[in-house]
């Protein structure tokens, strides 16, 4: 095929131009439609954004309640800090509670913890008696502190138990006090 406009006295460029001119209103219409669509979209989005910005509700709260909640939060924080630092009669209550809580098997529920320099008492219940044994095995407070079951009773399928950790004060004191160098020789 030769590169000519077969059977036409007009050049290829002239027929292409005529075709473009003929379809130009259609192209214009499409272009205008797209422009209007984009413009309308932009305006609508702008209005929606503006509305969202203007219509955002401002938080309403009572200044008095806010002050109370803040002071409560401060007290709690202070209390927690004091509890971490406090050593009444040489007992680190925070660490003991932490050990009781961490050693606890999943099905054991603790109801009461009493801490004194002589002994630590923990009460709780569990549906599985083996969990009490597991709990005792897991409780490791170091030398001079032995855990044992003080009582266990079965009440309608629930095993209520009391565990007491006896503190041998001398051994505990020996462990906690630093050993002088060369003392073993």
């Amino acid at each position: 095929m030769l590169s000519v406009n077969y059977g036409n006295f007009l050049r290829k460029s002239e027929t292409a131009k005529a075709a473009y001119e003929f379809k130009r209103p259609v192209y214009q219409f499409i272009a205008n439609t797209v422009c209007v669509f984009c413009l309308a979209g932009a305006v609508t989005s702008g209005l929606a954004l503006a509305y969202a910005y203007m219509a955002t509700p401002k938080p309403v709260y009572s200044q008095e309640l806010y002050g109370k909640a803040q002071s409560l939060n401060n007290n709690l924080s202070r209390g927690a800090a004091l509890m971490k630092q406090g050593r009444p009669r040489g007992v680190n209550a925070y660490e003991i509670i932490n050990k009781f809580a961490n050693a606890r098997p999943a099905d054991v529920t603790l109801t009461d913890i009493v801490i004194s320099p002589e002994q630590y008492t923990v009460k709780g219940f569990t549906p599985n008696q083996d969990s009490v044994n597991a709990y005792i095995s897991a409780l490791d407070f170091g030398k001079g502190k032995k855990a044992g079951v003080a009582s266990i009773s079965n009440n309608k399928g629930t095993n209520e138990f009391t565990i007491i950790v006896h503190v041998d004060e001398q051994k505990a004191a020996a462990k906690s006090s630093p050993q002088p160098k060369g003392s073993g020789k």
Partner: protein
Amino acid sequence: MSIVIILGNNKVSCVSLTVKDKTVNILEADSRHFDDLSSFLSSADGVKSLLSSCFGGDLKAAAEHKIYFAFTAGSGLAYKTWQAAASSFSDVSDKTFADKEDRILSLCIENVPQGFTDLYKDCVASVVSCYEDDEVYTVTSAYLPGLYINNIKEACETLGLTLFGISDIASSFCKFINCSEQQVLVRANGLTVIVNQFGSLAFMMNGDYSDSIGDIIFNMIEHYYPINNSRMNSQTVSSSDLEPFLVVPFNGLSRYNCEMSVIAAGCVVDSKMLAESNETVKSNPDKGGSKNSVIGKLRKLFEKK
């Protein structure tokens, strides 16, 4: 809708048609006589008055349609079949389609028929058909006075009409006549066109067709194209009885002049569409989808796998 204005021997026909689903629908056709048509075509104002006469003064309505012009015998049209070396049709310096087009059309102008330039100062050429051999190309080209073309363009531009093409009778016959089995010799008023699978030949004739003229024509065909025993392998048909030879169906052909309808359709219908419809018939008669169509390409892809 497309409107084709066919300019003949002091006769102007106006055909409106549409092409849909590879079928040509002739909607309306009307002819009128113009004394000294060449004087109308010799000025832009003359073409304007010719156009307003064709459209009954309603040029606004015409501006919404595609406008085509077609020239037939007796309107200043000339044909020539010529040969040139294949190498002369292209050059490495030709970068764009327009460059290649310029080179080919200047070759056509170099081969303008004798006497044509004596009548008209400048001429415009178009390629009707081209048979490409390994070494030599055989080209049939049509020629029109440049003045007519310029005036038509100017008039259309002034009136706001979209001019889609200016064509000729032989090009339309080449497009629409099915010559896959044998060559067809079409006898029209003042013109004989031979269409075969390789290309075409067109002869302007003042007198009637005779056997001696036929001998000359068939000898020329055998000279230009690789066809032996040309007369035996051809069928002669009048331009008013073309219907059995058309490659696409026409609606409304019985109501209107067949020659006029085919010329008009030849201007409007794209060659690609005709090639596709030919391929569909030849290669895939029952499957549908020509080789170049999307469906055809997909089918080819799946057939490979």
